[in-house]
C-alpha cells in the first residue's frame, strides 16, 4: 500500500509537471499546444546527449536541458502561434501549426538519434533502495519527486512574487485589459511559452530517468494524459493540474495493481470523459467558463 502510494506520487509528479506547462499556455492563450509533447521528448534527448557525449553530471544536464526546452518554446511561439494570433480561428489553426512543428521536431529526433530506444548510462542517478514504512523506494524515485516539488514551488514563487509572473496572470485574465495597463503582451506570451516548455522539458528528463526508455515518440503516451490531467484539474488552473496529476498517477498505479495493466488508460479516459460531462469546470476550475 505504502509502496503503491509512493509509486503513484512518483508517476503523478511527472504528469503534474507536464500538465502544468500545458495548462499555463492554455490559461494565457486559450489554445492547446500539440508540440508540448515533442518538446518533452526533445529535452530528454538533450539531457541524454549532455550526459553521454559531454559527460555532464545529471544535476547539470537537467537544468541545461530545461533551459534548452524553454528556448525551443520561444521559437515555437514565434513560428507557430504568433503569426496566427489575430485570426478568428486561431484555436483551430494553432492546433494544426503546433502539430506541424511537433512533426518536424520528431523528424529531427528520428534523424539524430534514430527510432530505437535510447537509455541513460547506468549510474546516471543512483538507484539505491531506501526502506520506508510499508515498502521500499529507490533514491531515484525520491529524487524525482523532490525535483518536481522544487519546480512547483519555484513556479508558484515566480507567478505570485515576480513582475513577469504577475503580468502573465494579468494577460491570462484579460489580454486586452493587460495591454491597456501597459503590459507588453508579446513578451509575456513569449515568457509563458518559455516557462511552459521548460516545465514540459523537466517532465521529459525526469520521465526519461524514471523509465530509462527514450525514443522520438515517447511524448505521445503522455500527450493525451496531459490533456486528461488539465481537464480533471480545471483548464487553466495550476493547483488543479498538480492535484489532478497526482490523482492520475495514483489512480493508474492502483488500477494496474488491481485490474491489470491493460485497463490503466481506459480508466483514465473514462474518468476524463465523465468529468467533462458531469463537472466540465474540472476539480478546481471556475464554473461557467467553458459552456456556450
Amino acid at each position: 500500500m505504502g509502496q503503491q502510494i509512493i509509486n503513484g506520487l512518483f508517476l503523478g509528479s511527472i504528469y503534474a509537471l507536464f500538465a502544468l506547462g500545458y495548462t499555463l499556455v492554455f490559461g494565457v492563450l486559450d489554445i492547446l499546444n500539440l508540440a508540448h509533447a515533442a518538446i518533452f521528448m526533445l529535452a530528454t534527448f538533450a539531457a541524454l546527449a549532455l550526459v553521454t557525449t559531454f559527460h555532464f553530471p545529471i544535476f547539470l544536464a537537467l537544468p541545461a536541458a530545461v533551459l534548452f526546452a524553454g528556448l525551443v518554446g520561444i521559437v515555437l511561439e514565434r513560428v507557430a502561434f504568433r503569426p496566427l494570433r489575430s485570426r478568428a480561428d486561431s484555436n483551430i489553426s494553432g492546433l494544426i501549426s503546433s502539430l506541424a512543428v511537433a512533426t518536424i521536431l520528431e523528424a529531427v529526433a528520428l534523424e539524430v538519434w534514430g527510432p530505437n530506444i535510447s537509455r541513460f548510462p547506468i549510474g546516471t542517478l543512483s538507484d539505491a533502495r531506501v526502506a520506508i514504512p510499508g515498502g521500499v523506494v529507490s533514491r531515484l524515485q525520491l529524487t524525482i519527486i523532490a525535483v518536481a516539488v522544487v519546480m512547483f514551488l519555484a513556479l508558484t514563487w515566480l507567478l505570485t512574487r515576480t513582475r513577469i509572473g504577475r503580468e502573465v496572470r494579468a494577460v491570462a485574465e484579460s489580454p486586452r485589459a493587460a495591454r491597456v495597463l501597459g503590459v507588453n503582451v508579446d513578451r509575456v506570451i513569449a515568457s509563458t511559452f518559455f516557462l511552459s516548455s521548460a516545465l514540459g522539458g523537466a517532465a521529459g528528463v525526469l520521465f526519461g530517468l524514471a523509465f530509462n526508455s527514450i525514443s522520438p515518440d515517447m511524448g505521445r503516451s503522455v500527450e493525451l494524459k496531459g490533456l486528461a490531467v488539465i481537464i480533471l484539474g480545471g483548464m487553466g488552473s495550476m493547483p488543479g493540474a498538480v492535484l489532478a496529476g497526482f490523482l492520475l498517477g495514483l489512480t493508474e498505479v492502483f488500477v494496474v495493481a488491481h485490474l491489470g495493466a491493460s485497463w490503466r488508460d481506459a480508466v483514465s479516459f473514462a474518468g476524463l470523459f465523465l468529468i467533462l460531462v458531469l463537472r466540465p469546470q474540472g476539480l478546481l476550475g471556475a464554473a461557467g467558463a467553458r459552456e456556450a
Partner: protein
Amino acid sequence: MTERLADFYGTYQSTIGYIGLNGLLALSVYTTLSCGQLALGNAGFMAIGAYAAVLLTMEAHVPFGLSLLAGTLLPALVAVPLGLPVLRLKGVFLAIATIGFGEVVRLSLVNSEAVNGAQGIVAIPQKTSVGLIFAALALAVALLGRLKGSKWGFALEAIREDEPAARTMGIPTGAYKLSMLALGAALAGLAGALEAHFTFMVAPNGFGFDRVVDMLVFAVVGGSGVVFGPVVGAAFLTLLPEVLREVAPMVGIEPGPLRMAVDGLVLLLVILFLPNGIVSLAGVIRARRSGRRPAGGTESTR
C-alpha cells in the same frame, strides 16, 4: 496504353482508395466545423462503424450493403446521447471531451476479448471497391453541397459566426449542432466500414488520436469553408508522401525522417500562408497578379 494504365492502377489502387476514404473522413470533421464546432470524436465513430460492419459481415453473414448501412447509422445513433451533454461545451473543451470519447471507444475495444482486443480482426472479406468509395464520397459531397446556400446552410453559417445572435433569429442551435455531429459520425462510420472491407483488417490502434488529428488536418489544410476543401486537402495530403517517395530520391532527399520533416513543413506553410486552405490558392494568386487583396478581406470596398 491501357496496359500501362492498368499497371499504374494496380500499383496505386490502395492510395487511390485512401484518397476517397480520407475525403470522407475529412468531410466528417467538416460537418461540425461548418457550424463552428471543433468535435474530434470521429476516430471513435469510425471505429464503431468499422467494427459494427465487420461483425455483421463475418458473424451474421448479412449482405454487404446492410453492413455498410449499420456501420453508418450506429455511430449516428451513438452521437445523439454523446452530443446532448458535450455540445454544451465550447471551443477546445468540446474538442477534448470528444477526444476523450474517442479514446474510451478505442480502449474499450482493446480490452474486449470478444473482438480480439488489441490484435483486432483480420481476414475480413474484401468487398469495398475503389468505385464504391468514390461513389460514397460523391454522394457526401453532393449532400453537403446542396445544404450550402439553403435555409439549413445559412443557419449553420449563422451559428458558426455568432451562436447567440443565431438563436435570436429563431434558429434552434442545439438541434443543428447535434444533427451535424450525428451526420459527421455517420460519415466517419461509413468510412470505417468501407475501410475495414478494403484492407482486410481492423484493429483498435487504427482509431487513435492520430487518426482524428489527420482528419482535422485534411479538412483545414484543404479549406473548411467550402465542401470541396476537405476533399482536396485529403487528396493532397494522401498523395504528398507518395509523391515525396518518388521525387525525394531524385532531389537527394533520403526517405525517412527528412521526408517527415518536409511533411510537417508543408503543413506549417499551408496553415501560415493559406488561411482558407489550398482551395483558396488560385484566388490568392489571381489577386496577387492583379494587385488586389483576396476576397474576404476586412477592408471596406466603398
